[in-house]
């Protein structure tokens, strides 16, 4: 509690004033959009309100748990992974158990990477270090998962004729969608690959900026930032791949029938199949 009270200092008041200025600018942009008949008023208000409340809440939680141990940090990261899975699963409601698919993918990607970061002592087990960096990794794994699922779904529903032709020629289901697995995983990695390529030239990410502000060696800060972005790429690759492979298994029935078709969902297909004699 003392930590929390300490954090409610003049900087917080200043921060709120700065946040108000940022919100005002966002409203200005919304008004500008409105002039061009782009109506994002409601969505912007909700997003800004959610963003502010969530970040303040995170600050409060971090202040309360500043000296928490690895177990508490792990529980926080697990909760974040669950929330990320809920968000990503909205991209593919047609498949069976989308929440589980997303959770497995995000958890696989982020846990492997965080474990490697801890094992190599790139990260310490301090909650204030582990949770912010872990959340970046989870957020990127979530994006990769959602992008992979969305791309795979779009490719499958766009190529139903070709896929069913392959099935009708006696191909294994996995062979008929192999090109779409490749494009989905690639699509989920592309933003992270671009991010890595542009590192230092186009943007200096927040972690490095924060380390520089707090007086760390610029070279070490640069290397540390590279490691974090490289790990984000690794987490995204694992999450995208796991999400796509789990989804691939769910777009076919046990009788090798394509269940993800425009106008028919997997769950609907399951109900039909269950009726079969």
């Amino acid at each position, binding site marked *: 509690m003392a930590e929390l009270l300490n954090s409610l200092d003049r900087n917080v008041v200043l921060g709120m004033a700065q946040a108000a200025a940022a919100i005002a600018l966002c409203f200005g942009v919304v008004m500008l959009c409105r002039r061009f008949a782009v109506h994002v008023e409601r969505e912007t208000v909700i997003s800004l309100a959610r963003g502010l409340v969530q970040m303040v809440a995170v600050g409060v939680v971090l202040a309360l748990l500043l000296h928490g141990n690895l177990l508490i940090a792990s529980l926080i990261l697990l909760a974040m992974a669950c929330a990320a899975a809920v968000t990503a699963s909205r991209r593919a409601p047609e498949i069976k158990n989308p929440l589980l698919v997303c959770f497995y993918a995000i958890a696989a990607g982020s846990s492997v990477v965080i474990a490697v970061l801890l094992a190599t002592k790139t990260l310490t087990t301090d909650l204030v270090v582990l949770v912010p960096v872990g959340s970046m990794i989870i957020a990127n794994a979530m994006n990769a998962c959602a992008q992979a699922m969305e791309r795979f779904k779009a490719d499958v529903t766009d190529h139903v004729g070709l896929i*069913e032709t392959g099935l009708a020629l006696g191909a*294994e289901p996995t062979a008929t969608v192999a090109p779409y697995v490749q494009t989905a995983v690639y699509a989920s990695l592309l933003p992270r690959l671009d991010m890595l390529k542009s590192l230092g030239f186009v943007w200096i990410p927040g972690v490095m900026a924060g380390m520089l502000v707090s007086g760390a060696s610029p070279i070490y800060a640069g290397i540390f930032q590279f490691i974090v972005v490289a790990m984000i790429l690794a987490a995204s690759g694992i999450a995208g791949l796991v999400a796509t492979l789990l989804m691939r298994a769910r777009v076919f029935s046990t*009788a090798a029938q394509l269940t993800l078709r425009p106008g028919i969902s997997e769950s609907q297909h399951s109900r039909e199949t269950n009726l*079969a*004699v």
Partner: protein
Amino acid sequence: MSETSSKESTVKPQRSDEGSPVSTPALEAEHLSRAVVGKVITNNISVQVHVGEILAVVVPSGSGKSSFLRLLNRLDEPTNGVVRLRGQDYRELAPEELRRRVGMVMQSAYLFPGTVAENIKYGPSQQGSSLPVEQIAALLQRVGLSGYQKRDVSNLSGGEAQRVSIARTLANAPEVLLLDEPTSALDEESAREVEDLLLDIIRERQMTCVIVTHNNAQAGRLADRTMIIEDGKPVAVGPTSEVLKNG
């Protein structure tokens, strides 16, 4: 059902001197039904197709034309009934094996990106075997596309693409051929050429064939027997000349 179908709804199998059936049907659907979200698409269809026989399934436009064929090679799951291939319940077969034995030519050619030869090789390659170049050449010659092996499929006309699709299905050497309105996407001249080609191949190979069409004249030209389906339900089945005369 009409008067025609009130007779025995299937052609009787040929009988030996002792009167016992000489062969089981190549393909048999029994009480086959499929409903999607409570809507019945295929309703209690029972029909037998014997070896070397061509059955036309005449379905009015917009009446779920492909549904019955998709049940026959298990691209869709029936909600009731069963299909037998040479007397064996098709659920006992691996779907991949079933679909190799019951080949299907779709309404659109749906060629895989690449060359004509790569498309022809697709089916056998899925079984882990490589189709010899001589066989590819022979199949292409049979469908009137000699020398097309290296052509990119994106440069083919609609009629040529459908011929490649037919050759690709034949490369699996199926026992039964399902044709889903194979000429409906073609211009009149190409349609007639593809139809003649199909009839020649089916007769020459003594293939068992089920063709779905909305065209009575096409059924008359191709089929030994015809079944008319309305609203998913069979309303007439019998020798083509009789069914079409009564229809």
